[in-house]
C-alpha cells in the first residue's frame, strides 16, 4: 500500500513538472509574438479600400475571431485599429502556430462619387510556428518509454512471452 502511494506521488509530481515546463514554454512563445511589430515584420494578408472603415474593421475582426483564431488578448484604439494575440487552437498544446494579427484602417486623400472619404483597410499577420507539437511529442515519448521500461514483463504477454514458435531454420551443410 505504502509503495503504491509513493508511486502515485512520484507520477503526480512528474505530471506537475511537465505541466510547469509546458506553461513556461507557452509563455515564451506568447512573449515573443507580443514583441513583434506589424509595421515591419508582419505579412500583409489583405489590402483593400472601403468608405465604411468601422464596418470593414468590425467584420474582419469577427471573421478572425470566429473562423481563424482563438483569441488570447486583444486591444483596440477607436474603430480603426484592432490587434490581437491568438493561437490556431483553443489549447496551446494543440496549436500549430501563434499569431499577432493587426487590422488597421487609414484615410486616403481620395473620395468616392458621393464625396465619402475612401479608407485603406489592411490586415497584417505575424506568425510564429509553435513548438507545442515538439513539447507534446517529447512528453508522450518520455512518459511512455518510462512505462515501457517499468512494466513487468509478465504483464506484457504479447511482447515478451508470445512467440511464433518457429525454430531458427537450421540448414544442413549440404545446402550451404
Amino acid at each position: 500500500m505504502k509503495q503504491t502511494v509513493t508511486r502515485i506521488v512520484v507520477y503526480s509530481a512528474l505530471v506537475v513538472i511537465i505541466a510547469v515546463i509546458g506553461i513556461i514554454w507557452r509563455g515564451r512563445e506568447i512573449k515573443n509574438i507580443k514583441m513583434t511589430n506589424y509595421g515591419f515584420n508582419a505579412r500583409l494578408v489583405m489590402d483593400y479600400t472601403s468608405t465604411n472603415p468601422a464596418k470593414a474593421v468590425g467584420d474582419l475582426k469577427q471573421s478572425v475571431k470566429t473562423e481563424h483564431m482563438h483569441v488570447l488578448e486583444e486591444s483596440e484604439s477607436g474603430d480603426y485599429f484592432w490587434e490581437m494575440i491568438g493561437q490556431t487552437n483553443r489549447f496551446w498544446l494543440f496549436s500549430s502556430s501563434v499569431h499577432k494579427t493587426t487590422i488597421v484602417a487609414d484615410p486616403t486623400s481620395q473620395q468616392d462619387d458621393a464625396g465619402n472619404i475612401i479608407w485603406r483597410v489592411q490586415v497584417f499577420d505575424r506568425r510564429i510556428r509553435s513548438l507545442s507539437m515538439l513539447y507534446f511529442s517529447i512528453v508522450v515519448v518520455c512518459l511512455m518509454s518510462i512505462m515501457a521500461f517499468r512494466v513487468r514483463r509478465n504483464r506484457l504477454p504479447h511482447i515478451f512471452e508470445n512467440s511464433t514458435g518457429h525454430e531458427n531454420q537450421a540448414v544442413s551443410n549440404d545446402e550451404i
Partner: protein
Amino acid sequence: MMKSDTFSIKALIFDTSGKLRSPVVLFFTAFVIRLIYLIVVLANNDRTALSEMFADTAIYLRAADYLFGINTNGQYELYMVGAGYPFFLGACKAMFGNSFWPVLFFQVVLSSLSCVMICKIADLLLNNRLIAFVAGMISVLSITSISLSASLLTETLFFFLLTLSLYLFIKGLSSRRWRYFVTAGICGGLMVVVRSAAMFIPLIFIALVFLIPSPGNAGNIKLIFKRSLAAVLIMILMPSMWAVKNKISHDILTLSGTGIGAAKVYLTAQVLYSVSNRPSWEFTAYRDSLSRSSMTDFRAGEFKKAQSEAYDLVVSTFKRHPLEYFKKYFSNVWENVTAISSLQNNQLPALENYSGWFYPLRWGYQSPVMLILSLIGLAIIFRKNIKTALALGLFLMYFGLLSGVTFWQGSRIFYPAQVVQTILAATTLVFLYDLIILHGVRRFFARK
C-alpha cells in the same frame, strides 16, 4: 476426387490449425483498398491531369521518353533522376502503350506486396506473429502508401525493392543460403538505381550482420559476413554502372544530380535566405531564382559546371553559416518526419474535407503520432533485444537524417522509413493492448 484438395477461400485465409494466414489476408486487403482507390483516381483524372499532378511526374516521363529514344529532350531530366524509375515507366509504355493504368496497376500490386514483406520482416526480426500482422496492417491502411501507389512517383517501386531486399537479406542471415544473399543484392542494387538516396543503405546491411540475432549461426559469423559482403558488393556494383555511364556522358561520377541539386535549391537556399533577413513569404521566389540559375548551364549541356557550382555553393554556405545550416537542417528533419500525407488532396480534391479522418491528431500539416508510436516501440524492443532495436533504429535514423535537405514534400520523403516505423508502431499498439485492455492501467500502479 479428393474433397480436401478443392479450393476454398477459407483454406486460403486460414491454415490447417485454424490460424489466420497473415500474408494472404494482408495482401488481399491492401490490394482491394489500393485498387478501389486507383479506380476512383482514374475516374476523376484524365491522362493529362495524371502527368501534371506532381512536378516530379513530368520529369520522370520526359526522362523515360529520352531513355527509350522517343524524345530527344530529356537528357537533363534523366541525369537528375537516374535511370531506375524512367526505365520502369518506359518499359511499361513499350509493353502497354501510352495509358498510365498498367503502370499504376503494377504499382498497386507492388504496394500490396510491400505490406506482406513488412509482415515477414517483422516476423523474422521479432519472432512475433501478432506484431508482424499489426505492422502489415498499419502499412495496408497507410494513406501515404495508398496515395503513392496511385501516383507516378518513384516511392512505391523503391519501397517494394527496399522491403524485398531487406527481407531476403534477413532470411539469408538466418538460413545462410547463397540465393537469399544474391537476390537481396540484386534487389538492393535496383533499389539504389531507382532512388540514389538509398546509396548508403548497403552500410546498414553490413551492420545488420552483427545486429540481427541468429542463434544457430554463432560459429558461422565469418561465413555469413562473407556472403553478406557479396550481397552488398552487388548492391554497390549494379548502380555503379549507371554512375560510370554518367562519367562518360557528363564527366561526373554520380548516380543522379538530384542529391546535390536538392541540397542547393532547398536547404542552402533556405539558409541563405534566412541570414539575409528578408520576409519569409518571399522565399519561394528566391528559391526558384536559385533553381533557374543552374538551368543555363544544364541547357548548354555543361552538367559538370552546374554540378560543381551547386557543390561549391552548398559547401561555402555551410562554412559561412554552420549554425544556421544545422538549425534549418534539423528543422527540416522534424518537418519531414511528422509531415502528413497530402497527395490524396491532389488526386481527389474532395478528400481534403476528410483529412481529419486520417489524422485525428494533427498540428496544421504535421502529425507526430507515427513518430511517437515508433519511438515508444523502439524503447520496448530495446528492452527486449538491444541489437534488434539498434537495427531498426538505424533505418529510422537513416531516412530521418536524409530528409533534412528538403522540405514541403509532404509525407513522401520519410515514407521509406515505414519499413521499420510500422513494426515499431505495431509493437507500441500491442504494448498498449497488453497494458490497458489486458491488465488495466490501475494494476500498473498497484504492482508489487
